[in-house]
């Protein structure tokens, strides 16, 4: 900074309380404005977090669609879908029918890192194409890296329909 420029600045004096007040007021007003902008922005970005635990009951179809002793592929529509979801509004699961209207409804997502497991009725195994996880027909871990068995949906039978509670991606922190 050159000397000539410096000489143009007003000399600091204790009597400049009005200038000091204006400067501090400017800081304070901008801080308030910043906070008022930040509240809706942060709330907006973290908005989806508040929907934690969002799940709903969805009908998978008549109980008769799932023959006893078999494991069938079933598809439901995400209950929290938006109009522009397209194909991603669909969710897949595996329905295993046991005797006496008992079911096991498995998430399609591998318990390791979420890839879609496939059912092989001949060997009665679920196999994952990503990292080689395998599960028995009851969903328990058979081999590979998964830390646990397949995720199971809560289900109930009402008026001849099989219902599951879903709408959230099943992961280790929220196992369906």
């Amino acid at each position, binding site marked *: 900074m050159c000397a000539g420029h410096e000489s143009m600045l007003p000399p600091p004096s204790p009597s400049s309380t009005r200038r000091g007040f204006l400067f501090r007021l400017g800081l304070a007003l901008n801080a308030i404005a910043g906070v008022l902008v930040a509240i809706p922005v942060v709330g907006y970005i973290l908005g989806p977090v508040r929907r934690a635990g969002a799940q709903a009951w969805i009908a998978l179809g008549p109980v008769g669609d799932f023959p006893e002793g078999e494991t069938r592929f079933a598809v439901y529509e995400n209950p929290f879908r938006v109009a522009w979801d397209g194909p991603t509004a669909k969710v897949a699961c595996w329905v295993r029918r046991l005797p006496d209207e008992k079911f096991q409804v498995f998430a399609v997502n591998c318990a390791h890192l979420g890839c879609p*497991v496939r059912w092989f009725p001949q060997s009665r195994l679920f196999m994952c194409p990503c*990292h080689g996880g*395998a599960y028995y027909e009851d969903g328990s871990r058979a081999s590979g890296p998964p830390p646990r068995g397949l995720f199971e949906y809560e289900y109930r039978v009402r008026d001849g329909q099989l219902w599951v509670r879903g709408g959230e*991606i099943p*992961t280790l*922190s*929220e196992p369906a």
Partner: protein
Amino acid sequence: MKLLGPAARWIEERAGIGAALAPALTHAVPRSTASWWYVFGSATLALFMLQIATGICLALVYVPAADQAYQSLEYLNYQAPFGWYLRAVHFWGSNAMVMVMTLHMIQVFLFGAHKYPRELTWIVGVLLFACTLGMAFTGQILRWDQDAYWGLGIGASIAARSPVIGEAVVHALLGGPIIAGRTLSRFFSVHVFLIPGILIGLIGLHLWLVLRLGINEWPMPGRAVDRDTYRQRYEEEVHRDGVPFFPVAARKDMIGMAVVILAVLAAAAVFGPHGPRGVPDPTIIDTVPRPDFYFLSLFALFALLPPWTETVLLLAGPPLAIGLLLILPFVAGTGEKSWRRRPVSVLAVILIVLIVTTLAGLGVKAPWSPVMNAWSGLPTPVAYVLGRTPLELQGALVLQNKQCRNCHSLGGEGGLRGPALDDVATRMTRDQLIHQVLQGGGNMPAYGKNLSPAEVTALVAFMQTMRPAGEPPARPPVDPVPPTR
């Protein structure tokens, strides 16, 4: 200046941009730095500019909505004039940017450029590297195909492993409780606005630091960095043996920039765009999701880590790796710069490169994944069924029908997850085979409940024929200690 037209002179007289930039362009740099080893940084910058140009073009057509993104990519591929080519350039440009940036990082590390006084330059560079990987991941999500969908599933599954906040992180990442329309919009915004903005700011800071502190000189063995003398010695070297950056050093940079751009253009023309690979319909589970090349090594790591280490390494690994890079200049900020006097650094680079490339190579092959259609698609080698008894032939059928070949190969074809079965009879006796099939173990599922006794008998009879001619069958293990009374 004489070549400038009247219009340019008119602008320059008022704006003074040329006069402002001239000192930066012609500043003196050590003669040793006018080297081909110093071109990777500017080449990375050139690729970034190429990414911006092609990215803006793609955004003119691409629809960042989950129900139409895939169709808009197909439109780019097949209908928009040059659409396929711009997609290809953006894809190969991103590959090249990650690779050239890695080369740049290795070069500056081996030349000791992270040492005093350029610690901050290195730190900003590490952040640039992290942001570029962020661009790579978000970019592959925008391809909105099956790889993108299941790649997000993997990302969410990793995030979900964080203690306590796992679920909240997943929801924030996906923009909702599940991968859907809001997820794509989120990643579009991050890929197109947020990270590029950060990148541009950090690149400006990076270049400012290079100009302010001077480009790292060619390191001489024995000339250690000392905080008290380094800057004075650098000034002296530049004064004694400096050359103007433009054009002496810049001409090699210019050639480097042109070469990488031309290489990307050529790769794009020859190999074309990547994907999209299949509609992102999560009910199409007949899919084999694979990451782009920059994440192949991580993909391999996920399959190979012992399960009990996995959660800790998945969560702590990436921050730890970035953290180590960030604190590097603080633990090794002075001393020898030359790679000739830094054997540990050279070994570390070699080791890391070997680990990453080996894992990536494994990731391409994915030997840990079952081959989902091996059982129904591959023929049983003729030699293994010639002259076999009906029981053994029955066993060959069981082996095929029960999906054994999804994990075990015959004649070099089939899964690689379990051992090849071509010579299994030389390794295991009849009793051991039965035990292994029924009980499983050693990472093999137990088939006890899924095979009838007749099927087990046939399967084991077939496997007992599986040994090369002239090799004896396995013998029952003999107790090495004779029983004593």
